[in-house]
């Protein structure tokens, strides 16, 4: 029997790691990730979870230990956010280049300065080119389910890349929701064993790991990561379907909400989508053809799915909880690129930085802009004190 528990996002992620059978968990604490470590420690202390939790002296060392453990053949889980993730940045590229399928929870928090512990996607976005799979969650149930799926996706022979699954600080990490906790036995069966053959530290079968390469090699290895990331599009979908058969809930690359016949669509990630879905219901009742396209998979970015989902759209708005000075929000760039040549205008909004609330009214105004075809193809900052 599956049980329902009242869990916050961190606890849901800890359950995901435990149920999936992570063996080595190297960590360094950082707000708001710390309670996730507390929960894992509790599982281990109670004898419910047979894993080694290793406390390192820094976030960078934590990921380095994760790479080492994964090279040794273990199933590895870790978690971090904001400054911690940026401190890990160098090692992130080692992990993806060495093709070790580490699974990491990223509890999206603004990157200082100014100092902030509030939700913001700019930490994960800074690593969008590190060749990690990046999935973004909307609810605590999705956090738990995604943690489980991540091990399957990353360890798939067609993929073999590390993966981050993200959920926003406070809004999910410290908010309690009813979460269905699947049976351990069922989850272990679903995730299966990790038996690496492609890269493993084995004295009986030595291989040259992280060898210095001449210009004759790096291009081909990078191309192999591209193939792996392309394969991930298929694998994420497959794992989603199989997960649905076993556990009854489906998550894919995108999460379209009343988009089928929608003329005006907001594309966004994480919890802003929840607010937007409520506004869509209200505006639909008023006869307006609006919808929300939540992007769950940012890496790989599902261009074809996005294009297909938006076939009846007249205009699209993106709401980015991140910003790159001198450019745009990350989602805006991806959406414009995906919709290039379709004739669908994309308007970009920056909102929710450093935890600034994004209200139903804010979302409604974005839809009104789209409907009135105002300031299309421009970037607006929501709630900026001008």
């Amino acid at each position, binding site marked *: 029997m599956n049980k329902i528990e009242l869990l916050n996002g961190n606890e849901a992620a800890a359950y995901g790691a435990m149920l999936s059978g992570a063996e080595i968990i190297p960590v360094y604490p950082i707000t708001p990730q710390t309670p996730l470590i507390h929960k894992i420690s509790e599982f281990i202390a109670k004898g419910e979870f047979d894993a080694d939790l290793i406390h390192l002296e820094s976030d960078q060392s934590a990921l380095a230990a994760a790479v080492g453990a994964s090279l040794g053949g273990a199933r590895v889980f870790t978690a971090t956010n904001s400054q911690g993730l940026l401190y890990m940045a160098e090692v992130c590229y080692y992990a993806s280049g060495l093709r070790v399928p580490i699974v990491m929870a990223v509890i999206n928090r603004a990157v200082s300065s100014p100092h902030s512990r509030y939700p913001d996607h700019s930490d994960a976005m800074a690593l969008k080119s590190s060749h990690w799979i990046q999935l973004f969650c909307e609810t605590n149930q999705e956090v738990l389910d995604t943690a489980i799926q991540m091990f399957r996706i990353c360890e798939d022979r067609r993929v073999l890349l590390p993966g981050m699954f993200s959920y926003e600080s406070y809004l999910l990490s410290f908010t309690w929701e009813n979460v269905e906790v699947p049976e351990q036995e069922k989850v272990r069966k679903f995730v299966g064993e990790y038996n690496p053959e492609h890269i493993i530290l084995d004295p009986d079968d030595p*291989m040259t790991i992280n060898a210095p390469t001449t210009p004759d090699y790096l291009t081909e290895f990078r191309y192999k990561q591209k193939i792996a990331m392309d394969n991930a599009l298929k694998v994420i979908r497959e794992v989603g379907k199989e997960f649905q058969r076993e556990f009854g809930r489906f998550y894919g690359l995108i999460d379209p909400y009343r988009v089928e016949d929608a003329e005006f669509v907001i594309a966004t990630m994480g919890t802003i989508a929840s607010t937007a879905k409520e506004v869509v219901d209200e505006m639909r009742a008023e006869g307006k053809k609006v919808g929300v396209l939540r992007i769950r998979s940012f890496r790989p970015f599902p261009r074809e799915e996005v294009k297909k989902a938006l076939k009846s759209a007249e205009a699209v708005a993106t709401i980015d909880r991140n910003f790159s000075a001198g450019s745009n929000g990350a989602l805006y760039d991806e959406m414009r690129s995906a919709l290039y040549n379709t004739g669908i205008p994309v308007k970009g909004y920056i909102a929710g930085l450093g935890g600034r609330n994004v209200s139903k009214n804010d979302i409604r105004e974005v839809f009104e802009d789209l409907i009135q075809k105002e300031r299309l193809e421009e970037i607006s900052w929501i709630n900026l004190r001008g």
Partner: protein
Amino acid sequence: MSNLPSVEELPEAIIARFGTQKAKTGNWRTNEIEIDQDKCDFCMRCVVFCPDGAIKVSEGKLKMDLDYCKGCCICIEECPKNAIKEERKVELP
């Protein structure tokens, strides 16, 4: 480039499925390293310090393994008896 492995032929993350033993560094060498067995008092410093394990002990004598000696001269620096010499083989431009 034609005799180099293709994308498909390359494994995921490693150049080759062997240890560094098969990555022979001897062809990096532009000099020749010689050990004067008469000066050597068998202290083993060079054996330990050689980054490529290129100095081997065989029948009570030191033997250079030219497949691996890359000519870095660390052994010369470390030898307390000045028993190792570098002979430049190739003139550098």
